């Protein structure tokens, strides 16, 4: 793949929780404006891997990591962690809008929490634009000043996506964002990805094979903390090169 098509690159990422090593020498090049599925059995290190990308794994006491992460060619360890997180947004497993904020305030939460002031017009524009992008504008237009937590689970998750992309990140990490949602809400969010990837580079953690096949352009298959295989989704699913990938695809491990 050409250098200019790479948004994010990791070189030999290792991570530990206390004495347990959970990631081993993970090197991968994530293509720009594509959906890359991070796939693998439970406990294989998928979530830890994406959390090392924005430094969120360090929230766990005793966590540490080594290796290099290049965001658009720039080593993130030379950047302020706040800037890294502005460029690499994240959507979590469970919808987690701020319960003390309205729908409107939730969309702008990133600006508020980082102390960036917006004029009334700017704020209104960002809210309408981002909620439209996640397909929520029509549904919540009348509820903008109600609590974010008053929306349905699927709507809350889209609100969290809106909150993340309102900051205009380059990369968005999705950590199993549909695992707490019903099938219909899941489908809405999956559809959303195909439009979001026009603007953002997406990493999508999932343990569902079908989901990975449906949504992703590329897939990274993890096992026991190692990156086993990376490639175009079609190619990996049709002709896996590693025996372990093949076994996983044929249902040999959970």
């Amino acid at each position: 793949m050409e250098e200019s098509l790479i948004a994010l690159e990791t070189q030999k990422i290792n991570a530990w929780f206390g004495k347990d090593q959970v990631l081993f020498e993970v090197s991968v090049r994530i293509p720009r404006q594509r959906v890359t599925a991070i796939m693998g059995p439970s406990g294989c290190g998928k979530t830890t891997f994406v959390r090392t990308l924005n430094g969120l794994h360090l929230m766990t006491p005793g966590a540490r990591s080594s290796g290099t992460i290049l965001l658009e060619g720039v080593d993130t360890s030379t950047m302020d962690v706040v800037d890294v997180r502005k460029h690499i947004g994240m959507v979590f497993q469970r919808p987690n809008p701020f319960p003390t904020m309205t729908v409107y305030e939730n969309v702008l939460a990133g600006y508020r929490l980082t102390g960036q002031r917006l004029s009334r017009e700017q704020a209104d524009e960002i809210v309408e634009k981002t909620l439209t992008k996640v397909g929520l504008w029509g549904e919540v237009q009348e509820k903008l000043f109600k609590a974010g937590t008053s929306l349905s689970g699927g709507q809350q998750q889209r609100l969290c996506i809106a909150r993340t992309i309102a900051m205009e990140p380059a990369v968005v990490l999705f950590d199993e964002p549909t695992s707490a949602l019903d099938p219909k809400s899941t489908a809405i969010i999956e559809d959303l990805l195909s439009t979001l990837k026009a603007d953002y580079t997406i990493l999508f953690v999932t343990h569902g094979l079908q989901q990975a096949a449906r949504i992703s352009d590329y897939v990274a298959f993890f096992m026991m903390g190692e990156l086993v295989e990376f490639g175009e989704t079609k190619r990996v699913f049709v002709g896996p090169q590693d025996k372990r990938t093949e076994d996983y695809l044929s249902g040999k491990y959970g």
Partner: protein
Amino acid sequence: MTRRTFKNNVMGLLVAASAGLLIAVLAVILWHIFISGIRYLNWDFFTKAPAPMGESGGGVFNAIVGTFLITFVAAAIGTPFGIFAGIYVSEHRGQRFADIVRLCADALQGVPSIVIGIFGYTFLVVRFRSYSALSASIALAFMFVPTTARVTEEVLNLVPSGLKEAAYALGARPSSVVWNVSIKTAASGITSGLMTSMARVAGETAPLLFTAFGSRYIEWNMLRPMSALPLQIYIYASSPYPALQQQAWSAAFVLVLLILLLQYGAKHLIARVLRVKA
């Protein structure tokens, strides 16, 4: 009846009786205070200072003013320290110094209030050569801080870690996460903790004996001796005059009412917090 069902019934009865006793004790106390106290309540009681010695009538307005002033100033002094300490312990969970702070808060809660009173006397009253309401407030603040710190820590620990992670993932700095996410989410819990702490110190008598001392006059100056409801109750109840003893009951009624209102308010707020969570 088999042996097993017999044992079961006996235990059931014991548990129910103990629970009933708890209610009965509170009911007897409240009823007695209500009956004895309400008889002598009148407008003068709430609005006038004690009548001069030998005259009848008068009220405890001086003590009501004192209780409010001393309690609110104690809360004003203690609130920031208590909340900051609570934030510290919650944010540094599992770290050695935080554990020590928590241990000290628990120990300070266990110090008998009479000891806090003597402490206030030695370090404030003696040093400034005067009994004063302010020294009473400071002594009560020593009791206010540990309870507030513990409650603050506990409600902050209840803030879902997912919310903090979401804030960090948006690029927020730790101080911003504490103020804009943790404190805001836990605000009503912290408020009810403050009210419970206030209710607790409002009824304290021992620290006031050595510090506020008491006064027969309506006093607004925190640097002078001041009365408070518990003090007034103590003085009136131990006096030989029936009229004063009756006023002690009425003052007790007012004090209990005040504390119950604070505690009811706190419970109400806690219930609201729990509803938000669910």
